[in-house]
């Protein structure tokens, strides 16, 4: 009896095997074996920072593309792209390493609270309801949507300042936090030589006096930095300064003239006259120039306001 069962099951199995073999040959889809090879060397984080759906999508795009120009795995950076280029026999595009930068320095101390929010702790939801717990409706809300979006544990909200801080060693510049931030505060900027960079840590578009009232560290759009910059890297638009990192040559003159300390310098060696400890955390510029420049600030802000109104009326 048992023999019949073994033989019949064996026969069914054999027929099935033949059928499956034939089907697999007939309906075979050719996949470039290099896709799997490329995918092997990619980090496998599936973060989407490259702009493709996951590492598989990026690998396919690399294999299909004629050149690797414009294709970059921000997580792996140059080493990984080198490996990809070696597999495909193509030239790897050289790309400057980037890093996420939080452009708000409205710490709890600098931005007085005007109200309290007790809804869902989500920046996306809070920003649909109102401008935030302080007088500044452009600044960081601090509920950590960027932290939740980061796949690399590279951004955390500092409980003392209420602001997110980027861990430069972990940040892969995938841009997930940039997309998650409803206030468009986070920007990907050139990491810079020795990780040194200068940026305006404020996005407040209010007029100078209004911005200043809401936050002691706000950019008031006075334009001193733009005048000071020898390279024309700074533009002031909508009452807020912006430093073009492709033009900036790291002379730090703008940092010294900023009356509110909105321009931050990172990872520079200490200056001679003032020597605050330099760390990875955003460093406030030397105190001395801030105090000097203060009396002039309101005047500059006022003239700014007037010109703005004139253009409005036109």
């Amino acid at each position, binding site marked *: 009896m048992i023999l019949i069962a073994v033989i019949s099951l064996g026969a069914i199995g054999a027929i099935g095997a033949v059928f499956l073999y034939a089907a697999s040959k007939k309906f075979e889809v050719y996949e470039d074996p290099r896709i799997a090879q490329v995918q092997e060397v990619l980090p496998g984080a599936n973060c989407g920072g490259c702009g493709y759906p996951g590492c598989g999508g990026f690998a396919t795009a690399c294999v299909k593309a004629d050149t690797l120009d414009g294709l970059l795995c921000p997580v792996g950076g140059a080493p990984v792209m080198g490996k990809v280029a070696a597999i495909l026999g193509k030239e790897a595009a050289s790309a400057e390493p980037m890093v996420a930068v939080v452009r708000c320095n409205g710490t709890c101390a600098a931005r007085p609270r005007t*109200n309290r929010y007790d*809804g869902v702790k989500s920046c996306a939801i809070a920003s649909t309801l*109102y*401008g935030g717990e302080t007088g500044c409706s452009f600044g960081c809300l601090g509920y950590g949507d960027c932290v939740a979006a980061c796949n690399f544990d590279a951004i955390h909200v500092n409980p003392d300042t209420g602001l997110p801080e980027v861990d430069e060693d972990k940040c892969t510049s995938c841009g997930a936090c940039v997309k998650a931030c409803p206030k468009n505060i986070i920007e990907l900027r050139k990491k810079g030589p020795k990780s040194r960079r200068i940026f305006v840590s404020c996005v407040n578009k*209010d007029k100078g006096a209004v911005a200043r009232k809401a936050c002691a560290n706000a950019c008031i759009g006075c334009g001193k930095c733009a005048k000071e910059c020898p390279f024309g890297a700074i533009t002031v638009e909508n009452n807020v300064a912006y430093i073009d990192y492709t033009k900036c040559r790291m002379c730090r003159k703008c940092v010294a003239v900023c009356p509110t300390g909105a321009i931050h310098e990172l990872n520079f060696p200490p200056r001679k006259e003032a020597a605050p400890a330099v760390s990875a955390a955003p460093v406030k510029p030397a105190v001395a120039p801030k105090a000097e420049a203060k009396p002039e600030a309101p005047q500059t802000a006022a003239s700014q306001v007037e010109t703005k*109104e004139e253009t409005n*009326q036109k």
Partner: protein
Amino acid sequence: MLRTFRIGGIHPPENKLSAGKKITALAAPKQVIIPLSQHIGAPAQAVVKKGDPVKVGTLVAKAGGFVSANIHSSVSGKVNKIDNALDASGYKRPAIYIDVEGDEWEETIDRSDALVKDCTLSSKEIVDKIAAAGIVGLGGATFPTQVKLLPPPGSKAEIIIINAVECEPYLTSDHSLMMEKGEQILVGVTLLMKAVNVNKAVIGIENNKPDAIAHLTKLATAYPGIEIMPLKVQYPQGGEKQLIDAVIRRQVKSGALPISAGAVVQNVGTAYAVYEAVQKNKPLFERVVTVTGKAVANPSNFLVRMGTPINTLIEAAGGIPENTGKIIGGGPMMGKALVSAEVPVTKGSSGVLLLTKEESVRKPMQDCIRCAKCVNACPMGLNPAFLMKFTVYKDWEKAEANYIQDCIECGSCSYTCPANRPLLDQIRLGKGKVMGIIRARKS
């Protein structure tokens, strides 16, 4: 058996503290702030500049598009500046600041109390007058009225439904208006009927206002075609689609306009504004606002000029009570906590509600126990628990497939949830995202 809408709904405590209070006109404050975005659609464009003298009723901003509305000065005086001002949206947006001097009205406005019943204007002229007066839906959604009165080609209005249900707890501004301006409202309704060329109108009033029902029913005998329909008390009956279902037993398809069911719905306050605009040449620059709250000394209904800071209203009602936790602009269900007591009254301000600390506190969120109370409460037949989940997981395709875009943001789900889950907070976010995706796909 009284009618109501057939799907979902809740019945929160009514707390109509200011019911039966006469409408008191508040004097204009020293300065008014008139936001340029007081309506749904494009912001209006200012037509005055710094230093310009204005009178009560002077046009200060022109409609900025098809879906937009004119804005008129609510006071006489001088334009101080045009600058950003914090408004009920919680953001700083452009507004006109006017310093008040005296109280001089435009000569064209008929300031007498006499009732003007006859109107010889054609329907187009009526709609044009409504558009010129800057009238928007005064129930709170602030959709420009003239747009609603011009049905898209191929659709035909059969009936005007007047929304006088005032289903939001606490609010009594419509109620007080019906008691004091009943005749004017009925004339306004006949004007609306003429504007869209129909001969039938129904005024839906919830049964918790028996005095208003009796008053209007008595008056309506002189106005052919207008019927007063008492409705069962059920929130959110003031929703356009809910009211159509309650009154004419028709449902509006997902994504369709109410006109597809043959109905044009207007708020009772809007009907009064239409009367004033067409018969008295008076643009929309003042409205009735309820100031209320359990701790408020004197809950009242005020006739307020647009742009008056709400703390002026609160002062008139006895000041901010000591243990106030939140100040809500609008009613407790759909209203929004205000960032500051200095935000101005706008066309959409139906009430100011002061909640005590105990009332305003949010209880901690717990896990969903799948009790389906929110599903039973949803007046649109949606599944709020799932929609919240789809939003949290950013699954926009599923959210759209489950009609998140049909949510009317009434808050019944959050109100009824025993686990205090912030259903509406999340769904509102998801709805916004999905609407954006749909718009991007269409264009």
